[in-house]
């Protein structure tokens, strides 16, 4: 990322720079992309895919050229006609490159030697003309769009906060949409399922926000508490409640187990937290990661108790105060005299998770203005000062850990009741990373940031299922879902580089003198540990 603020580079220097970038790309791409190992009967063999390598090299070379010419290396004085023509000529070249890239993918660059791949590039001429026009349009438009350098861009982005003009109105609108969602005309089962998933992650994000955003404790094993909640509910509802309780109480299983699951998760939070919370920063991170893994390994291997890798199935659905949501005569639909439809159950689940998430949010907001919440934030900013002022840091950290864990437990039992089936597969490290990513990308400590980034991340994740039209462009073998995770990873990296403080950089102070003023995220020390 060359942030050149100084003198402009000559075209020659730019070309050399791009050539180096292309060379590095070649070194990176050649073995892994160009030579695919294939298990064949006679042992491993290599399949050649040089088309892909050339595509990658071309994309990097020309992509960097564009950035050098149009974004990084621009000055206001250089807008003469000659410069423009030169730049457009380069844009034409870029069009050629993009065309070539598309051609490689469409003509099936599989198992092709280097020479054959080159030959194919010439066949792609018609593609090139089309993409060239497109590239010309895009780059001429972008010419005036990018700020002159990245530093200025960052300042500009922070000054004009995305949500500043909307503020509370935006939150209210979001809440109204959330409440009305099941009754909107375009809401179908798919949308509701997606909304439930997003809300689950919003709730998990809010729970983790207490630990990481408010108390500044980096927890890489949050999924452990999610798992404890899920397994607590599943085991209680399928094995223990039938032993303990009379039959008439069974329809209430979810509502009895939900607080229990939360409490159990909180208990685990305290048990795990007590020995390790003395650790600072990254040590805490790695120990929590280890705990997450330990819980998963135990869940997988303690087959007598947890069902092992097969998991637990037949987890009962929640009921509306004891009234099941099914097609039977006692079902809710029959009792209030409307025809039964399976979507009613989904709507019910949607409102449960919405309620749970809103409770999480409200509790967090209220806690922030209580002494304990202030102690969390003070602890995050300066642990030594806190200790000197007589705050019991261990207890303060422990409460944050336990409350975060409790919300994770609630979300876990909701997950179990919604799926009806759980297995250790659902509680891998990737989930912890995803939740942490949602919190950090949204802007640590910001409640609305979690909502936005959960919608962007999970929604974006889901959108990959609907990209089948790309097959028309890239050929039938192209499966967009394959590229879901890599795009997710790239997004994590680029959002961090673009906005290290997350999407929402505004922070609401929890205590203030006379008047509430928002502060920039740059001024608080989140997740310092």
């Amino acid at each position, binding site marked *: 990322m060359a942030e050149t603020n100084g003198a402009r580079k000559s075209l020659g220097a730019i070309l050399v720079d791009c050539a180096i970038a292309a060379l590095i790309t070649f070194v990176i791409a050649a073995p892994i992309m160009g030579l*695919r190992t294939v298990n064949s009967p006679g042992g491993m063999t290599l399949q050649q895919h040089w088309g892909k390598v050339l595509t990658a090299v071309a994309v990097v070379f020309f992509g960097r050229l564009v950035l050098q010419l149009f974004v990084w290396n621009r000055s206001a004085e250089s807008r003469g006609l000659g410069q423009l023509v030169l730049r457009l000529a380069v844009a034409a070249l870029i069009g050629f490159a993009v065309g070539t890239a598309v051609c490689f993918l469409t003509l099936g660059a599989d198992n092709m030697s280097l020479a054959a791949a080159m030959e194919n590039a010439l066949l792609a001429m018609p593609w090139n003309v089309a993409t060239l026009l497109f590239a010309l349009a895009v780059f001429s438009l972008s010419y005036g769009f990018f700020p002159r350098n990245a530093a200025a861009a960052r300042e500009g982005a922070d000054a004009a906060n995305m949500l500043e003009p909307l503020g509370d109105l935006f939150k209210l609108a979001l809440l109204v949409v959330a409440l009305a969602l099941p009754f909107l005309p375009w809401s179908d089962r798919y949308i509701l399922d997606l909304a439930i998933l997003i809300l689950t992650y919003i709730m998990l994000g809010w729970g983790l926000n207490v630990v990481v955003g408010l108390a500044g404790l980096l927890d890489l094993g949050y999924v452990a508490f999610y798992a404890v909640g899920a397994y607590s509910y599943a085991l209680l509802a399928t094995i223990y409640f039938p032993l303990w309780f009379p039959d008439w109480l069974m329809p209430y299983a979810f509502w009895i187990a939900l607080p229990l699951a939360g409490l159990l998760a909180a208990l685990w939070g305290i048990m795990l937290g007590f020995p*390790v919370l003395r650790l*600072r920063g990254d040590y805490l991170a790695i120990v929590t990661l280890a705990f997450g893994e330990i819980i998963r390994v135990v869940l997988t291997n303690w087959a007598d108790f947890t069902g092992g890798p097969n998991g637990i199935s037949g987890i009962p659905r929640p009921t509306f105060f004891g009234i099941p949501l099914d097609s039977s005569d006692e079902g809710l639909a029959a009792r209030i005299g409307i025809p039964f439809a399976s979507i009613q159950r989904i709507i019910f689940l949607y409102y449960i998770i919405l309620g749970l998430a809103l409770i999480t949010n409200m509790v967090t907001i209220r806690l922030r203005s209580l002494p304990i919440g202030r102690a969390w934030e003070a602890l995050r900013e300066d642990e030594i000062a806190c200790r000197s002022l007589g705050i019991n840091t261990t207890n303060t950290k422990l409460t944050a850990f336990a409350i975060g864990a409790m919300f994770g437990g609630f979300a876990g039992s909701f997950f179990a009741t919604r799926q009806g089936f759980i297995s250790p597969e659902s509680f891998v*490290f990737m989930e912890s*990373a995803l939740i942490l990513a949602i919190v950090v990308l949204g802007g640590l400590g910001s409640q609305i940031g979690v909502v936005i980034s959960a919608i962007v991340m999970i929604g974006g994740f889901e959108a990959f299922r609907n990209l089948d039209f790309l097959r028309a462009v890239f050929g039938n073998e192209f499966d967009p879902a394959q590229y879901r995770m890599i795009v997710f990873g790239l997004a994590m*990296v680029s959002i*961090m580089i673009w906005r290290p403080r997350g999407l929402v950089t505004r922070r609401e102070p929890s205590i203030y003198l006379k008047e509430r003023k928002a502060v920039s995220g740059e001024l608080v020390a989140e997740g310092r540990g």
Partner: protein
Amino acid sequence: MESVLREIGGVNWEYFTQQLINGVTLGSIYGLIAIGYTMVYGIIGMINFAHGDIFMIGAFIALITIIALGLTASAGLPVLLLALLLVLAIAMIITSVYNWTVERVAYRPLRGSFRLAPLISAIGMSIVLQEFVRINQGARPKPMPPLIVGNFQLMERSAEQGGFVVSLSYIQIMIIVTTVLLMAVFSVIIARTSLGRAQRACEQDRRMASLLGVDVDRTISITFIMGAALAAVAGLMFQLYYGVIDFYIGFLAGVKAFTAAVLGGIGSLPGAMLGGLIIGLIETLWGAYFPIEYKDVAAFAMLALVLIFLPHGLLGKPEVEKV
């Protein structure tokens, strides 16, 4: 079966010795990866979460080079060793380019940013590397017949006592010798060369170092390159030793190696090696005498215990808290 063996004729020292050998071998591999973590953490204070995946990349490049060169066990040991040196060189160079690029693209723009930003970026990069390999190489494990076969028989337990042969295979010797050699080379680099001095200076105070004329960016880049080169060695060794790799090996190996680095005291080179050995031994011995499914639990529990009682690791320097 092992437990039956142990019951016949008292303590089965032969079995124990064999496990020690296996543990040291595994520990050497962890140690090589752990050095990458510890050096990067020492110099810029971040967990390079993608380092485990750099190790995986190293293993894949080694595998691809071995197939491309057409190496088989029938080539004879001297030829194989020479060829493996070539494989090692190629894997080290390409893996270094990977890590250099990762640092350049994902970490350098975030230098001086708040603490979690590089960590999230590193987790993102770890996903990218894994998926890059999965998409291009396929998700199925890649088995390879063993290249280096043969072993020395060290001890033998008589048949009436259950019969057990302690063997030290050539590949185990190779792994341990290479690790010791590399450790020696790296210790000298850190202690004696100007590069090592620059690294130690950056570790203590980056700003002061840059004021005194140390090129901090270059030093950090070189640190990443060195870490990757060692990870590539570990990758090749892993590939040769276990004979099967897939795109996901980096995660668990990375977590264990980071555990090793923390255990030994993060920032300390001998500590990383020691931590690696301890983790390798715990894992192997646990797997030999207790339910093998819980060997990871044992390693992680050990980490938690050490950190609780020795928060700075075995060989780490205690940090002075500054107000």
